[in-house]
């Protein structure tokens, strides 16, 4: 083999690599373009509809005019209710798994349950909500029933994030605390939890963003087609942004007239979810640096 041939081989080898890496890069760009098209389409066609009236007034004239205020408020309420269930439970579960649980069958079963819970289809959560909260507990179709259903749905997200946050707390904190004679709970509550709070918050926010955008679990557990007023108690039905968008897009008798309103609703929902997600991402990045610097 001449040296010429070898260098030719090398060129084609590295040439190939270049082409292949560009292929991979293009795949990533394809995904980014898909995302861009979705966001731009909704933003472009939705922005024209957004006005003070749209955000602060209830729908009028058979939902062909007016705003989406009750849907915004409803989504806010139901998300807060979901948080009341998911946050304490999620954090407690994470503390158990990361601080108390020993490696063994029980821990494994809990983890497998959590992972499978994360994979349960949202419509199945909806059925579960109907059977348990609406019927068995007698909440009826209500904010409470929908909020509890969404809370259970977001539980795995909250647990995973809270556990990750606990894992970032250095082991030396725990050993130091115990060595000074603190009991386990004293050690956890004063040394482990405080530095983990920002990370847990990230998980909570991600869970809430997920809950705010879900439609299927609230379809039969409390979301209403149209209500001119705000929910009066946890046992009232409510309007919600995702369900409102679903109605405007597919169920309304005059779909073409309400199309701009549907775009507006979609934009408001997207912005809401993104603000939450972005908050979580920023929080995580600031939080991540902390222990690395302190090392």
């Amino acid at each position, binding site marked *: 083999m001449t040296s010429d041939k070898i260098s030719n081989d090398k060129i084609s080898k590295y040439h*190939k*690599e270049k082409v*292949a*890496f560009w*292929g*991979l*890069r293009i*795949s*990533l760009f*394809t*995904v*980014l373009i*898909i*995302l861009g098209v*979705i966001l731009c*389409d909704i933003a472009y066609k939705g922005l024209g509809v957004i006005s003070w009236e749209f955000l602060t007034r209830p729908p009028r004239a058979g939902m062909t005019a007016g705003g989406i205020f009750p849907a915004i408020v409803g989504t806010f309420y139901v998300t807060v209710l979901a948080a009341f269930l998911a946050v304490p*439970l999620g954090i*407690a*579960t994470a*503390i*158990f798994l990361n601080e*108390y649980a020993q490696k063994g069958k029980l821990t494994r*079963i*809990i983890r497998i*349950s959590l*992972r*499978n819970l994360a*994979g*349960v*289809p*949202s*419509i*199945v959560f909806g*059925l579960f909500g*109907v*059977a*348990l909260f609406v*019927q068995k507990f007698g909440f009826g179709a209500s904010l409470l029933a929908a909020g509890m259903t969404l809370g259970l749905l977001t*539980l795995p997200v909250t*647990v995973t994030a809270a556990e990750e946050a606990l894992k970032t707390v250095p082991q030396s904190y725990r050993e130091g605390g115990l060595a000074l004679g603190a009991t*386990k709970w004293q050690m956890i509550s004063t040394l482990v939890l405080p530095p983990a709070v920002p990370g847990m918050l990230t998980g909570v926010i991600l869970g809430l*963003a*997920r809950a705010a*955008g*879900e*439609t*299927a679990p609230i*379809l*039969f557990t409390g979301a209403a087609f149209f209500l001119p007023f705000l929910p009066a108690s946890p046992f009232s039905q409510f309007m919600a942004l*995702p369900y409102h*968008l*679903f109605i405007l*897009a*597919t169920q309304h008798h005059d779909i073409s007239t309400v199309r701009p309103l*549907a775009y507006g609703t*979609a934009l408001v929902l*997207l912005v809401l*979810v*993104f603000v939450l*997600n972005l908050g979580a991402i920023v929080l995580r990045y600031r939080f991540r640096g902390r222990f690395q610097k302190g090392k």
Partner: protein
Amino acid sequence: MVNIKENSIKYIFLLSGLLSIFILLGIFYLLFSNSYPALRDVGIKAFFSRGYWNPTAYSVPQYSILNLIKGTFMVGAGSLLFVVPLGVACAAYLAEVAAPREREIFKPVIEILAGIPSVVLGFFGLVVVAPLLSRIFGLPNGINALNGSILVGIMALPTVISLAEDAISAVPQEYRHASLALGATRWQTLKNVTVPAALSGILAASLLGMGRAIGETITVLMATGNALADPSSFLDSVRTLSANIAIEMGEVPRGSLHFHSLFVVGLVLFLITFIVNLLADIIFNRYREGV
């Protein structure tokens, strides 16, 4: 005194840990107990024999969910066909090629994609993808299994990308070094060493993506047209198990046979996703022990 307090705190946490097991069992139990009246009166066989889903038929109600299952798997498999290659390529790029800086930018962007609510994606499918498909294929409308596959695929992409990336990153550094030291290029290393070593993790990622695609409700409900007929191609309208529940649950009288038979549909959907997820879990664990 201190011991009592410490122990009771421990048990409170244990209890909340156990709760996730109870919730999963509770879902299964409530689905089953609400399905039971339908399974008893109609019989399991009626749900799985040839025919159509039409529980409200005036003369002879039919309960076959075969077309629904077929529709569900068409949408799920159709989405995987493009999600797995695309997702793995993105993951390989992020894990092995991208500069750390690039990664810091692109990973949150992918997370944004994961954050788009399903109803917004469904809406996008209805107003953008459907007209596009109808023009490309010359159809009266573009609301069909293909549309559903595309949208559900977009939905499953972030899951597949991030899990496949984890799997590729987890391949020990020595593998790469050995390959590079033998004179292989980074691309040859990626193609012949790293990705094959991560294959079971990638498989688990794909299965989890499939699980998401099968369970997705609102997006498919808005994009697939929900016809009950036996679909013969991806350009036909299909109805999935999840969409079927969403469509009919709102209007069915509580406690009727129809109501309970919808729980049977839910039970079947639950079992399918459960098996898919469990499979992914087993593969994932075995692979983690292997590396």
